């Protein structure tokens, strides 16, 4: 009696999606282009959390979901699942990226210099209401003066040299084969305590808001550490691949990447004390998330009962797709489980109050 099941539920789904599309207007190539071109930070965030560097697809995801961030991230992640992994790129290092912004709060000046780069940090946060009255406000034209250096030294190199920084430097991953051997949370689920590569990968994909919340709780003093921002970097990196036959290295494209490092005194547990380093990096430019994430990286390595110091707590609760998905799953019908709960409540109610009974017999 096998017959194709198609009943009211499926029609309801199609109509509700139709209503949503009507409310949000047509999906046009022009809109998608506009999002990609004019909302780079939003696109970066979706790509970073979506774990797929594809500005055009991220803009499409945003357009298609009316700007619902969690939905857009899910679209990218689900698309990513369908793509086979053909190659591993060579690792990028901060020495070889093209840095456009690089600041340190630790020293007034640092080797290589402070490079303010593109930022709204020191802008006045006033709405530019005149933009509503004119067709456009042109971006200013700036003269180029000095050519920027092709790379900047790392502040941690200097700190290590002078004996301030704790911990031995692990040997750098160099070949694509070594990259392929790194633990990867999309291939093996994290079992806590997780390898550091998985921790940094989870932070890179983590929900910006969630990381900020937990990082901020840490900054405000819940299990407080006293971090100083060692370096924040915004950069472009070449995605370099080795040709599978000739072995020649070629660039497959350029991606925006950012990273943050914080250092904390007296966290290493060593006497005499040394500085401890926290690090986070992600695809796209997302300074707020990375500063909080780098602080959580230090916090998670310390023995402290506060949740923001527990790796399992931080990483499992800042997974944007899992957290948002589970939250909205409560909209699904639960009448079977609820009726099972009600059965227990009714039964216990019928038994009467144990406390009153105990009171009556003077217990």
């Amino acid at each position, binding site marked *: *009696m*096998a*017959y*194709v*099941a198609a*009943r*009211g*539920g*499926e029609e*309801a*789904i199609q109509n509700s999606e139709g209503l949503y599309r009507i409310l949000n207007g047509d999906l046009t190539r022009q809109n998608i282009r506009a999002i990609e071109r004019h909302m780079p930070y939003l696109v970066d965030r979706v790509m970073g959390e979506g774990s797929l560097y594809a500005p055009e697809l991220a803009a499409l995801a945003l357009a298609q979901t009316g700007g619902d961030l969690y939905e857009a991230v*899910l*679209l990218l*992640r*689900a698309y*990513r*699942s*369908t*793509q*086979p992994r053909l190659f591993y790129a060579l690792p990028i290092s901060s020495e070889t990226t093209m840095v456009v912004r690089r600041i340190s709060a630790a020293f007034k000046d640092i080797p290589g210099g402070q490079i303010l780069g593109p930022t709204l940090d020191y802008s006045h946060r006033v709405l530019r209401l005149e933009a509503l009255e004119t067709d456009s406000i042109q971006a200013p034209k700036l003269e180029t003066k000095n050519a920027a250096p092709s790379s900047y030294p790392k502040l941690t190199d200097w700190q290590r040299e002078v004996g301030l920084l704790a911990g031995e430097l692990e040997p750098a991953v160099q070949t694509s084969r070594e990259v392929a051997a790194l633990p990867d949370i*999309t*291939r*093996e*689920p994290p*079992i*806590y*305590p997780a390898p550091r590569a998985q921790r940094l990968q989870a932070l890179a994909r983590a929900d910006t808001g969630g990381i900020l919340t937990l990082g901020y709780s840490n900054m405000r003093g819940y299990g407080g550490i006293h971090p100083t921002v060692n370096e924040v970097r915004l950069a472009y990196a070449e995605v370099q691949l080795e040709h599978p036959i000739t072995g020649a290295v070629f660039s497959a494209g350029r991606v925006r990447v950012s990273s943050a490092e914080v250092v904390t005194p007296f966290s290493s547990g060593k006497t005499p004390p040394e500085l401890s380093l926290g690090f986070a990096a992600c695809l796209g430019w997302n300074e707020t998330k990375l500063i909080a994430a780098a602080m959580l990286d230090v916090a998670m390595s310390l023995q402290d009962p506060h949740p923001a110091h*527990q790796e*399992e*707590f931080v990483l*499992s609760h800042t997974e944007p*797709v*899992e957290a*948002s*998905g*589970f*939250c*909205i*799953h409560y909209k*699904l*019908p*639960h*009448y*079977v*489980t609820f*009726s*099972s*709960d*009600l*059965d*227990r409540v*009714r*039964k*216990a109610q019928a*038994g009467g109050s*144990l406390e009153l009974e105990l009171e009556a017999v003077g217990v």
Partner: protein
Amino acid sequence: MKLSELAFERQDYAYAFLDEFAKRELRRKILKAIAIPGYQVPYASREVPMARGWGTGGLQVSLALVGVNDTVKVIDQGDDDSVNAANLRRFIARMTGVKTTTDTLAASLIQSRHRIPEELLNERQVLVLQVPMPEILSSIEPSYARAREMHSDGDYALLWLGLYEDLVKYREVSYGADYPVLVNGRYVMAPSPIPRFDTPKLHQAAHLTLLSAGREKRLYAVPPYTDVYPLEFEDVPFQIEDQRGWRDASTGAAGKFMSEIPQDGGGSSYQLSDTGLKQKLERQMAGEEIEIGATYFDDDTNFYITGFLKGAS
């Protein structure tokens, strides 16, 4: 001969959506889960085009198993027509072209959220249960890392203590659905939030049950003919939901799990939660010749394995 004649027709997505590496991993983990009944096997858990918590774990297992000759049934709260069940069924059918059904007897692969069908499943059927929280210990030990250690030690003392505390406080065990069960004498397992009414159906079942939590990245199994006992004290037996006197409003069926529908002006009416069965009963009443399978519970709520349920409901 042209190359295009030899090649398959171009498709935007692979058969059953997941790439072959993902399917291979899932199948290996499923085999491991079958080999260690009740043990939670971690797996990578790919993102699929549904939100996490909406059956992505069950869906991945279904996609890894579904073959071209399968007939698929998907239910949510017992209902084939529930919007999310309809959505999952539509997706599986779209990505594979397999037949779908609402008839439990006709299905070879059943994906379900929170119910086990009323008609007895057989050895050729696989039941995939969607799992929100795979860790039965999470209510007493929120850290999965620590809970894993407790499972390896077989340390379930806190679960028993919780049952005891309930009895002291309420004179009743407070677990509604998702009642903890001991599988094959070794692992205590979350049977997914099926009502207690469905819990005994797992014991010595002819079919294979696979349970999968996509968000938590754990899958586990109850192989055919495996012992599954709800945790119960010798003097306080496990009880299923008390639905005595509840009858399906349209068919008059009884002894099956019912949905309670509050009525205007007080009181409730009842509907069979298993809508596939309800539909068949209705068609039978209309004079159609319909095969209705044997059920786990008879009309007086007697379980088919005599003596397994010691407590009255």
